């Protein structure tokens, strides 16, 4: 599939607001063919897409709980279908929250321990570099990316965490600029500094920081671009 442009679908819920940024980065920076999937579109299946991004924002205002209402909207049935069949799904920020609420990933997001919205650069440590989302990285690579969220405080029962660890499904953890995973480098109180996790098969990943906002040097970091480069590499090579 080398000559064809990779096709990406970007879901749009009422209240999504990082959809345009992801669209621009995928099309203009990575030269893919990305298009929007409006939550009400009558799509029978999503097989035409090489991967799906659930972008950030405030779907349904994030009322009730972040991501909760979007997770229960009809298009998620198709996403679930797509994902169960092995399709690649990346949820960023609110997209991560939606994946959790939809049960595609395990655990929940609580309010940041500061109880405040936090917008700032963080460092991430790559724990697993053998996923579609990280295969262009090396294990332990450090990435600088911005976060911008109010509910990024990952929480799960002990059993779930053990499960994640067993399956190598904790993909990214918050760390400091030296790669040390410390309390101080944890921006939101997230359990074990978890910033990004996948499902068992590693075809679904949720990530709190924004790779689309850190894919160009002029924006202060190109590190987020590795997430997209990984997906591209994986698709090209599979």
């Amino acid at each position, binding site marked *: 599939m080398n000559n064809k442009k990779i096709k990406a679908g970007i879901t749009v819920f009422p209240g999504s607001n990082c959809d345009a940024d992801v669209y621009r980065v995928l099309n203009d920076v990575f030269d893919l063919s990305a298009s929007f999937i409006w939550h009400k579109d009558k799509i029978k299946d999503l097989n035409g897409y090489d991967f799906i991004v659930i972008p950030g924002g405030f779907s*349904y*205002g994030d*009322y*009730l709980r972040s991501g909760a*209402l979007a997770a*229960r*909207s*009809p298009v998620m049935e198709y996403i679930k279908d797509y994902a169960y069949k092995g399709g690649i799904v990346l949820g960023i920020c609110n997209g991560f929250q939606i994946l959790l609420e939809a049960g595609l990933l395990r655990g929940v997001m609580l309010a940041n321990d500061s109880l405040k919205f936090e917008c700032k650069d963080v460092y991430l440590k790559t724990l697993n570099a053998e996923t579609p989302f990280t295969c262009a990285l090396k294990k332990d690579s450090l990435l600088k990316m911005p976060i911008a969220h109010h509910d990024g405080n990952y929480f799960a029962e002990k059993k779930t965490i053990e499960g994640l660890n067993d399956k190598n499904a904790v993909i990214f953890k918050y760390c400091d600029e030296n790669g040390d995973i410390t309390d101080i480098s944890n921006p939101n109180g997230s359990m074990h500094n978890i910033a990004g996790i996948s499902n068992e098969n590693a075809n679904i990943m949720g990530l709190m920081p924004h790779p689309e906002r850190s894919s160009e040097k002029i924006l202060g970091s190109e590190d987020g671009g590795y997430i997209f480069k990984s997906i591209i590499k994986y698709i090209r090579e599979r």
Partner: protein
Amino acid sequence: MSKKAFIKIMLKDEVLDPQGKAVLSVLKSSGYDNVKDVRVGKYIEIDFAGEVKNGHVNLKGEAEEISEKVLSNPLIEEFTIEIK
């Protein structure tokens, strides 16, 4: 004996409830057709220390004061308190 205050805080009727509105629209689109309206409020449980010196009555007073001054904005919200 330890006592608890249960405080329910709702937006006043005439005040817009964006959360309720959003929940309503999702319920409708999920086929719950006979849902007519949804209002979302807060529920707060306050646990008072072991020895409540001044008894039940004052506890209610204290809970009222807390509700009015700290927990709610009387301009847009109203609260009800139960002591158990």
